[in-house]
């Protein structure tokens, strides 16, 4: 206020409204905005985590009697996930009398995937061909009906393996996800997560405890 009065005295009679510059100093504002932008950029969850769906069979109630589904031994493939990223597999049914040698493999592209792919070639080819047709434009369908069409293909499949996935008690959750992931990569139509029975547990321990004897059978 004092300043204005002083100015008036100097200029005498002529009253000229002081011209204020229209430019405001925006530096603090910019500073603040920079800060806020940085804050929001860092706290924003940009990419949402992905999910993998898995459906487990309904549990059988205690007083409920359900006939176990009949599956052909020739189509069954047992996969046992062991400790240290090891996977064991064997075809057919466990036999308490004669220990079936477990085949040891791993989670690489040439490991368990190759085993599954060999058995699931027909269905895998079909799905592959189908997807290729859609991409090249031979077939004109929408994305969501593509999914249901693939599901139908899997349902109709009757040559592929029925995979029973079992876990040894030292298996890691990472491998749990890996093996189910493998199923979707190879396009296995029928797979199920079940418990390890005592025969198989013995087989795994045999394979783990005596690597010298189990190695030659694995290489066969």
């Amino acid at each position, binding site marked *: 206020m004092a300043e204005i009065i002083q100015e008036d005295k100097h200029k005498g009679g002529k009253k000229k409204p002081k011209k204020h510059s229209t430019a405001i100093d925006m530096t603090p504002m910019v500073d603040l905005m920079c800060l806020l932008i940085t804050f929001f950029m860092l706290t924003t969850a940009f990419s949402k*985590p992905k*999910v993998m769906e898995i459906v487990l069979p309904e549990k059988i109630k205690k007083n409920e009697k359900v006939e176990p589904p009949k599956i052909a031994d020739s189509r069954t493939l047992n996969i046992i996930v062991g400790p240290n990223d090891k996977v064991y597999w064997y075809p057919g049914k466990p036999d308490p009398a004669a220990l079936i040698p477990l085949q040891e493999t791993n989670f690489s592209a040439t490991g368990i995937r190759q085993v599954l792919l060999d058995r699931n070639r027909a269905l895998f080819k079909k799905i*592959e061909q189908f997807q290729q047709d859609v991409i090249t434009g031979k077939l004109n369908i929408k994305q969501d009906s593509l999914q249901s069409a693939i599901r139908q293909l899997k349902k109709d499949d009757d040559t592929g393996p029925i995979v029973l996935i079992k876990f040894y008690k030292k*298996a890691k959750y990472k491998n749990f996800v890996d093996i189910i992931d493998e199923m979707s990569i190879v396009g296995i139509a029928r797979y199920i997560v079940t418990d390890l029975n005592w025969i198989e547990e013995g087989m795994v321990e045999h394979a783990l405890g005596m690597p010298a004897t189990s190695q030659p059978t694995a290489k066969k």
Partner: protein
Amino acid sequence: MPKIKIPHKSPHVDMTPMVDLFSLLLTFFMLTATMRPAEPAKVDVPFSISEKKTPDANIMTVTIASDNRVFFNVDNGPDTILHFRPKILEEMGKRYNIVFTPEELRYFEKNSAPFGVNIKDFKAYLAAKDSKERDRFQKGIPIDSTDNQMALWVLFSREVNPSVNALIKGDGSVEYPLVKKVLDILQDKNVNRFSLITSLEKVEVVDTKDAKK
């Protein structure tokens, strides 16, 4: 001689366009921001090729940390007027004869971080002043058959919100028996469809193509 006048340049830069741009960016980030709730434990999720995104609402998440603590979280429903979280906590309190005040319920509704707190410690957990004090109560939710609080959380979440989806966020190094236990608890409450939270792995897809050839 007349002096040559050097044009006097002002050191001020016109910041208006910069401010314009910044406010635009700020508005964008503020509107798209979904706050990431603080995780009580670090969880390294395994990789998969699945490209499905996590749903926005109707989810209950069971988190399994690498130190075998189990956490639970449930969302408030697709609409804010639904208030699922306080309802679930209220039901839980009724079962254990704990009465939660409206303030506590409101606080629980607003802070949607995963919790691994025994229900008996819940009042103290909600009253905790800062995250350090809160962390002391994060001992993991009891999942033993003698005091299976996890089963009750799942049960009440499903009662309050029947369309809730089960999500499992597990650390890659957790051993299978614990995962199996959590799956069993969920299956006992008739949840048979699970979504496992994973992070995307791109290399794998290329690998399969090579393997196929």
